[in-house]
């Protein structure tokens, strides 16, 4: 069976994907994910080596991580992969009042916002050496502990559509909206249960050791990452070979303490 190989690059938000994948990967034997984690604004550490058509990094620490997870002396040959997933390098924009401004004004600001994101330059570097499909995920929306509501999600899907169909038209790059089940209905806000048990960077934890729990309401938990990855694989008609519902996915009906315990169950 041909493997479906994903190169997953991201800063702190990659954690939920990486840990989530460790929980559900057994259900996707045909899929292999290579994580390339880094810190903060590491997206701009990448450069393309046009001679051997590989993706490299300037930072020695990141290079060491790549060597550990991938090998090849830290030079990523994207032809080894079917998909490049860049996580969390785009913060969503504040929006503008469409009663006052035209759609073209909105596009102009929105596209500039995307171009100014941490992840966008990385897509351009990748395109210098490879036409691999690139998926970009947003930094997840912030949940609220006090039960209040954030911004309305009106226009959110339309904005994503316009970025993908205009800014990224013909570029084989796509922004993936945050998975619906992780968001409060009608709001640009993550459900609280997906922000319980979120962990710090797993860049290079010691064998068998999990990174510390953050509980910072900025990063989301492995349940989020697992579900998001399952959703991405479904787009490629790759379905789990076994039911992974035993994995502690958020239920939305538990106290914070219960969720915490639930997220850690089985670890």
């Amino acid at each position, binding site marked *: 069976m041909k493997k479906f190989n994903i190169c997953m690059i991201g800063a702190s938000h990659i954690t939920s994907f990486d840990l989530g994948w460790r929980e559900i990967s057994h259900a996707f034997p045909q899929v292999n994910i290579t994580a390339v984690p880094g810190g903060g604004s590491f997206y701009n550490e990448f450069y393309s080596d046009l001679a051997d058509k590989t993706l490299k990094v300037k930072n020695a620490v990141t290079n060491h991580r790549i060597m550990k997870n991938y090998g090849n002396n830290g030079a990523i040959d994207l032809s080894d992969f079917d998909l490049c997933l860049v996580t969390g390098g785009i913060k969503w*924009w*504040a929006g*503008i009042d469409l*009663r*006052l*401004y*035209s*759609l*073209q*004004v909105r596009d*102009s*600001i929105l596209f*500039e*916002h995307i171009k100014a994101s941490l992840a966008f330059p990385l897509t351009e570097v990748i395109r210098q050496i490879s036409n691999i499909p690139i998926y970009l995920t947003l930094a997840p929306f912030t949940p609220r502990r006090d039960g209040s509501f954030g911004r309305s999600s009106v226009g959110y899907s339309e904005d994503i559509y316009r970025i993908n169909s205009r800014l990224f038209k013909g570029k084989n790059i796509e922004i993936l909206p945050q998975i619906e089940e992780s968001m409060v209905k009608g709001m640009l806000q993550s459900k609280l249960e997906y922000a319980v048990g979120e962990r710090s960077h797993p860049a290079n934890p010691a064998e068998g050791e999990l990174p510390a729990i953050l509980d910072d309401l900025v990063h989301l938990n492995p349940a989020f990452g697992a579900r998001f990855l399952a959703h991405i694989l479904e787009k490629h008609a790759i379905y789990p070979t076994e039911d992974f519902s035993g994995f502690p996915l958020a239920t939305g009906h538990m106290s914070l303490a219960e969720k915490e315990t639930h997220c850690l169950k089985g670890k």
Partner: protein
Amino acid sequence: MKHPYQNLPAKAFWRTAVANKEMLSISDLWSPKIELNKKTRIATFGSCFAQHFGKALRDRNYAWVDGEIAPQVMAEEDRKRFGYEMFSARTGNIYTTSLLKQWISWALGYSDPPDEVWEIDGRFYDPFRPNIEPNGFESVAEVMKSRNVTINALNNTLRRANAFVFTLGLTESWSHSLGNYEYPMCPGTIAGKYSEEVHKFEAQSFTTVYENLRESIAMMHSFNRNLSFLLTVSPVPLTATYSGKHVLVSTSASKAILRAAAETLVQDLDYVDYFPSFEIINSPVFQGRFFGKNMRSVTSEGVSFVMKNFFEARKANQMPSPDLEVGKKHSAAPKPINLKEEVLCEEELLSAFGPVDQDDEKI
């Protein structure tokens, strides 16, 4: 006193005010009749040259009225591309006094704008601001919505402003003969389709120009009694004329009519003033030095000289406001004006329709 000329100031005599002076030291060209200080809320509209006034006022921390504010996060170059911060509302260039009257009439509810919209390749253009949205709008509804936003912004600007600076640009106009409304540009040049049966050219007479300006001012002043007016005539010659005359002759006629209309109103109304942009650039005294090679586009030096005269006359006329005092934080000299970067002028597009000349200078 033996005769009235005896005690006149030096500026009243050509020898002392002009002939005996180096050209760039000629000064005192304007004695402000209306008060413009840093607290005066000033709105600017008109032809391309009016854009310099808005920018110069902003650069010097005057209370320029931005009635249609761009989204805060919008990049500066995009603001210009989309017609923000060029005038106090997103009207685009208002070249004629009849077009001014049309916009004021819409803004103050004397009439409603027509529902005409131009379409090219699935994009939609506002005939009254054909260049305001690069690549046009997405739909007819969006054209209408955006136009209404601007009309409301103009209304709000007129309500808030204490001074209305208007640069008179042209006397030649194109209008819809049945609907009796005017376009800023001849249909078919930027967008729209020209039709001999529908579209009517007019080389406006003094009476037409004067009446439209007078009525515009009357509408605005009855809406806002605190509003005073500063008129100026654009020094920029016509790009093209449809009058059948030589463009140089048409330019002279046009500027003479505009100048006379402005002067008549200044004499009639104590809340209307005139600033001599046209004279500063066009006077033979300056030997054409403020024009580019094509003798049409005004150089950045020329624009700076105009604005220098504007601000110096204002300073001389009144006590300096705190921000102008030496050493104060906001008293830094404004950046030099770069005409090509700063001004968007639809009318210049007409030059593209003329015969090709190897020596043409790109404007």
